[in-house]
């Protein structure tokens, strides 16, 4: 096992990794920018190295500085967290070339999954479905009917040159297809000067459901169930829960099996997340994230498995500490991403945190780098903390979450705590009836 790990990140995730290391008897090196000298990850780590000025490009993304920090501290491995260099295949290769272990997947898999087309081709070959669509442009009505029959209704006809919703028409059944096809072509021609259109399955109210997978170097592959991350604003996840209110045991087992087989076929190593759109019982691949996810604690809450610990073990050449049969899903967990933002306008709110109180009690976890007296810097993302609450069922979990949001105090800066308090009064949220468009619609209706 490693004796010393360098954490190439900041904020709550740097703390999260530090905690796993300390429990494993590994000493930690924090790296930081000049703006983060007083940050909690720097204060808690065993050693710290200032690697550059405030701008992330010159500090947290500065590969030579991070390698040099490994050299002067004698760290053996680097955990990249999420964001920054976590999905940078070149960083993983440079570390390896200098004799340091990258705590993450192999560079080739980071590279493949970072390329949308290569990723879809790879997972399709490994048995995972993508949103079905036509191969290239449809030149006439006959081709359109043939393609729609193969894809399955409802279908969306889209301008090949398009964007912004123009040249997009939905056909719910064969009865609508001829008209939709003609209209889409006409709009495409008018808007883009090109009447080429293609077709894919239309998902009207999809959910974002993602599967946590993990693989060691000995061929063991497991899935740790799903997370439902449908509540999003501008493609940013806001609240996540596990299990998904929309998925039952049979659906979980089925997609889990497909995902595990695909991961094995690809030869993937380490922790990863396969993201799907889910509608009417079907899963369609969006992308695969080759890193630890922000929302990993909801999976930890329902499985009792420390995912960062497993990542470090795998990187050190050890096998998974559990088998698929040993994984049990217990109760329900929800995570709120509390941002330093105005809860209505979402305007960033950096500044001095004058008071701070963390909620506590059974089933409560707060991953946050805040403290009273901390100057929340304006240079990085606005995540102020993740509140993760676990209950024996979804009802208990929600009651506990409401209690915690009322208990938490962050003074001096604005946070999105009131947003979550409002959301937890909405019948759709309480009953788990939401899709990936729900939050945007709700925010629009509020203003």
């Amino acid at each position, binding site marked *: 096992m490693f004796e010393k790990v360098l954490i190439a990140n900041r904020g709550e995730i740097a703390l999260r990794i530090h905690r796993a290391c300390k429990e494993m008897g590994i000493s930690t*090196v924090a790296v930081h920018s000049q703006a983060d000298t007083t940050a909690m990850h720097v204060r808690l780590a*065993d*050693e710290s190295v200032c*690697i550059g*000025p405030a701008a992330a490009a010159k500090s947290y993304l500065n590969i030579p500085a991070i*390698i*040099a920090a490994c*050299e002067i501290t004698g760290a053996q491995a680097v955990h990249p967290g999420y964001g920054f260099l976590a999905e940078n295949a070149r960083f993983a290769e440079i570390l390896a070339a200098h004799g340091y272990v990258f705590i993450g997947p192999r560079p080739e898999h980071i590279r493949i999954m970072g390329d949308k087309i290569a990723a879809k081709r790879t997972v399709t070959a490994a048995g995972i479905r993508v949103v079905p669509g036509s191969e290239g442009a449809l030149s006439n009505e006959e081709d359109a009917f043939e393609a729609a029959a193969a894809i399955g209704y409802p279908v969306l006809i889209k301008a090949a040159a398009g964007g912004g919703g123009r040249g997009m028409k939905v056909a719910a059944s064969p009865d609508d297809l001829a008209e939709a096809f003609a209209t889409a072509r006409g709009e495409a021609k008018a808007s883009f000067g090109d009447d080429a259109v293609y077709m894919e399955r239309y998902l009207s109210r999809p959910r974002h459901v993602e599967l946590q997978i993990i693989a060691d170097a000995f061929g063991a592959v497991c899935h740790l169930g799903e997370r439902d991350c449908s509540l999003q604003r501008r493609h940013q996840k806001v609240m996540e829960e596990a299990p998904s209110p929309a998925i039952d045991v049979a659906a979980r087992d089925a997609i889990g099996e497909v995902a595990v087989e695909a991961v094995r076929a690809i030869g993937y190593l380490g922790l990863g997340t396969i993201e799907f759109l889910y509608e009417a019982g079907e899963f369609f691949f969006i992308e695969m994230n080759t890193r630890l996810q922000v929302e990993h604690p909801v999976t930890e809450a329902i499985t009792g498995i420390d995912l960062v610990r497993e990542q470090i073990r795998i990187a050190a050449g050890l096998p998974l500490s559990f088998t698929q049969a040993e994984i049990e899903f217990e109760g329900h967990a929800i995570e709120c991403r509390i941002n330093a933002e105005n809860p209505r306008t979402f305007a960033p709110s950096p500044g*001095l945190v004058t008071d701070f109180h963390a909620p506590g009690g059974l089933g409560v976890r707060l991953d946050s780098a805040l403290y009273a007296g901390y*100057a929340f810097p304006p240079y990085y993302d606005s995540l102020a903390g993740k509140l993760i609450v676990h209950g024996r069922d979804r009802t208990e979990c929600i009651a506990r979450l409401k209690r915690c949001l009322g208990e938490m105090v962050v003074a001096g800066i604005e946070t999105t705590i009131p947003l979550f308090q409002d959301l937890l009064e909405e019948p759709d949220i309480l009953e788990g009836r939401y899709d990936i468009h729900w939050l945007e619609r709700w925010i629009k209706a509020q203003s």
Partner: protein
Amino acid sequence: MPNTKAPAGPFDMRHVRELADILNESGLTEIELDRDGLRIRVAKSPPASVATWAPPPAAGAGPIQAQPAAAQTIEPSGETVTSPMVGTVYLQPQPGAEPFVKVGDMVAEGQTLLLLEAMKTMNPIAAPRAGRIIEFLVADTQPVEYGEPLVVIG
């Protein structure tokens, strides 16, 4: 040097205050005290400006919060050359060789003061201007962080 958390030795801020008082009374510009490995230097030159930021004014009402006071650095007189990167300091071109420069030497602008090794590459650190070497703030083979003071040129 990377910040390693060892138990802090006894350090009494009163020493600094006393020295500062002597400095003010005596009209000197600089006093340095070295005792049992504890070295305190007080000097009168203005503190280096510390880059800081202020939060945007709150959208609503309410006073703008005070920022924590910028760290008051006690700066020796002369110009301090800081490290442009994380790395390891070498004061001579190779082991056993003469150092690039010594305290008291006159240096020309652009003259190499020391080497910083990062990623197996030796990076020469040049004098930003001509002047006399007043002090080295780092030792040979010492690891340094970004922004760490290296040399004072008077």
